[in-house]
């Protein structure tokens, strides 16, 4: 979470720039505010298990971010954390299954599917690639985000642009890739590119 917060902090201006091309220029600053709050609450009351870290972080994002990214990222982390349960330690397989549940919850909440030019275009391939390694997942997420460039946005504010959303990388998919890179970094496998 700390690595994710640092990464979001570092890339906030880029996320906001991507968002100003097709949205309303606040994706970076909103996530920055949310993840700063996550780090603060985790430091104040460190949860005992990985599952609790994620549910606490998710709840904090819902309470601070606003916009669409608050509920969507909040749901991703909360559902993943709930799926992990009370275990003190989790295996890579357990994490992958839990993330799958989290990503499915995001798809349901947003009513979207891969190919709509949303965060799912990064999250979905990343969870699949997690079977190989954290690093592979991070790279799949980056590729997934880049693959939104030629897509027409069908959800969120970018969808108002219609065909003119083509040619822009989705900010949500980009921030999702940042999170998977932070995960790979934390696992000691290096970030994607």
């Amino acid at each position: 979470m700390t690595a994710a917060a640092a990464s979001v902090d570092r890339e906030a201006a880029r996320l906001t720039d991507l968002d100003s091309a097709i949205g309303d220029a606040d994706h970076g600053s909103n996530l920055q505010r949310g993840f700063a709050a996550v780090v603060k609450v985790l430091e104040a009351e460190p949860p005992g298990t990985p599952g609790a870290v994620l549910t606490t972080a998710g709840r904090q994002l819902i309470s601070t971010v606003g916009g669409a990214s608050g509920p969507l990222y909040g749901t991703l982390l909360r559902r993943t954390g709930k799926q992990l349960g009370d275990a003190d330690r989790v295996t890579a397989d357990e994490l992958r299954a839990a993330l799958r549940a989290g990503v499915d919850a995001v798809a349901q909440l947003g009513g979207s599917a891969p190919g709509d030019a949303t965060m799912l275009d990064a999250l979905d391939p990343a969870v699949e690639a997690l079977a190989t390694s954290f690093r592979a997942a991070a790279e799949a997420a980056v590729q997934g985000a880049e693959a939104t460039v030629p897509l027409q946005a069908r959800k969120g504010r970018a969808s108002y642009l219609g065909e003119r959303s083509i040619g822009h990388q989705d900010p949500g998919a980009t921030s999702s890739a940042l999170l998977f890179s932070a995960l790979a970094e934390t696992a000691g496998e290096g970030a994607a590119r």
Partner: protein
Amino acid sequence: MKMLINTPESVVTDALRGMAAAHPDLVVDVENRVIVRRDAPVSGKVGLVSGGGSGHEPLHGGFVGAGMLDAVCPGAVFTSPVPDQMVRAATAVDSGAGVLFVVKNYTGDVLNFRMAAELAEDEGVQVATVVVDDDVAVTDSLHTAGRRGTGGTLFVEKIAGAAAAEGAPLDRVAGLARQVVESSRSFGVALSSCTTPAKGGPMFDLPAGELELGVGIHGEPGRERRPMMTAGEIADYAVDAVLTDLRPRHPVLLLVNGMGGTPLLELYGFGAEVHRVLGERDVPVARTLVGNYVTSLDMAGCSVTLCQADEELLRLWDAPVRTPALRWGC
């Protein structure tokens, strides 16, 4: 870019402190970002709660008061508020008669209000939700986020607010709100970009000699760009866009709305042209409101909203209202 602010981070908080100082009829919780009418909850009355990103003032805080909204939750600039704010607002105004959430159709607002409705119901508040989607400039399809909510929101809040003030039950207030949504259509035009405090510069480039037709209230691009047009030509374009979608069988309520950076001198002139076009199209206008009501920070431009109003809607529109930004009959 020069702005009359302290810091981009404190813009909303500072504005809320100012609202508290200027309007003693309101209770402004600056820390939790909730504005509630001072006499809430009003016994036996359905509570009306709205909210959304800041930057559209006077929407929504300016519409809190007798005959309109009971509470609002402002988010960060152009960003939906969070569920915690909405739940706080709902519990503050619920008298036991239930609460109506008036939500503009943006993904973030819809998701956060949906979560808030579940949380509020856990706390024993009965919640109904109406989603406003009046903007004809964007396509309405199952595969997109659908139409944006813009100027029609004001009609929904005023008319549903009047019904609630009369003591109508929740399902009736929600039903009227939905009728207003179905009867309202809008179209917006930008002559310049807006400036968000976080970005500190224009959100998009609009060359001096061009205008953007069909713009959204967050500066989202519209249908097309054209070389600058006269007020009369813009009125022809905007009214035709609305009437292509809405074929009123009743006289209409008309909102000629400024986006924040256009003076009333220009808005009234534009309003005259809108009246001319509606006359040419045989659409009678029952009431007209001209001014800055649903703004987009400092954007120059305007929008036109029509709501076809049967006698009941017209009566509720005329009912007394006492809020910072809308006030008549009392």
